[in-house]
């Protein structure tokens, strides 16, 4: 695992929907694209399955950054699941800010099954962002 200059190795969770972004992640894997190893993928059926409680609990439980990745808008296997995800995380981000957690620790985006390279790119960038933010000590300080 890579460490940043000061030895900080972030813990990152990536929720990926079964139909697009997980397949995208898989493609990135089988294509042997170079990726940081600081993230763990949790496969869910749809981005709408990711409830804000999970994100809250992950951030409270010592995770430094959370990604929610679904199908592009219009492509959700369940038609409008990602519409809901997009709205609820837009709201949650603002709320995290009011409560003192940098909203940049939550990243929401869309990756199709054929976008292996894009998956690699956004994960790499998010890991960099979180490294710059530094460790998240959770709301308990």
């Amino acid at each position, binding site marked *: 695992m890579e460490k940043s200059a000061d030895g900080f190795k972030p813990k990152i969770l990536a929720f990926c929907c079964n139909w697009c972004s997980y397949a995208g992640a898989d493609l990135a894997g089988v294509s042997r694209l170079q990726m940081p190893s600081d993230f763990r993928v949790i496969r869910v059926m749809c981005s709408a399955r990711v409830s804000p409680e999970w994100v809250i609990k992950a951030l409270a439980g010592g995770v430094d950054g959370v990604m929610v990745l679904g199908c592009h*808008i219009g492509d959700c296997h369940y038609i409008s699941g990602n519409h809901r995800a997009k709205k609820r995380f837009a709201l949650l981000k*603002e709320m995290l800010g*009011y409560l003192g957690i940098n909203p940049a620790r939550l990243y929401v985006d869309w990756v199709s099954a054929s976008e292996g390279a894009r998956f690699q790119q956004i994960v790499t960038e998010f890991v960099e962002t979180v490294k710059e933010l530094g460790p998240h000590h959770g*709301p308990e300080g």
Partner: protein
Amino acid sequence: MQDPVQRVREIAGQLLTGGQVDGVLGLCEQHGGVGPCLFRGEDDLSSLVLEPKYPLANVCKLIQARYPNGRLGVIVRGCDERALIEMAKREQVDLDKLALIGLACTEAQAVECRCRHPYPQRIDVGERVEGVAPTVDENVRKLLEQGFNERLAFWHHEFSKCIKCYGCRNACPVCICEECILEDELWVQPGVVPPDYAAFQFIRAYHISDKCIGCGECEAACPMDIPLTRLYALVRETVRELFDYEAGADVAAPSPLVTTLEETPLLEVGER
């Protein structure tokens, strides 16, 4: 101008004598205090008062649960009406069986509540005064001027006072779930005080985000004086900006969190 109390007594009296309602829900002075009261006859109305602000939506819900066919007059301020509208969306009350008597709040009351709409949709009594934006409040402003670390420290200090009495949830007119996640040990560990505040306070704040009507009853109920409405006021503003949506405004408008992007688009939120 006629004394508002007299005017309300008159309207309530007419509803009762005309047989339009079986009772009128309002406030009365009794045993040296003020509390909710169901006025059944015109004669009872001499004890009716309008102050202080007191939440009637939850009382209305209890009466309707017991007497589903009863027709009720209810004296409502803006927040009472908005609470009833959000409750009606979730089948907690039946608006069709209610006759609302609308009471406009004073400017001082509006400022105290940081209330955008200090009046119900139809005003029967009182003068309409302009509402105030929650961000006008000095404490809300102060929070917004702080950086993330300062905010985190502030809330940590506040939330660590929580004794998990559930008063905030119980007082809230829109916290209506029969099975509350805050009593589920998967999320909130039993027997631990203060509760892990991310689990307790963040989750409650998110759950009320699309339905909080800003009545302030949560904070009023909190024995530890945790400034909950400072957070909820900001959350309500955000919902307003992101979705052009206000809870309690329209019984036919579903929460923007359950509609598609075509039905309720997501808007950009400005800098704070």
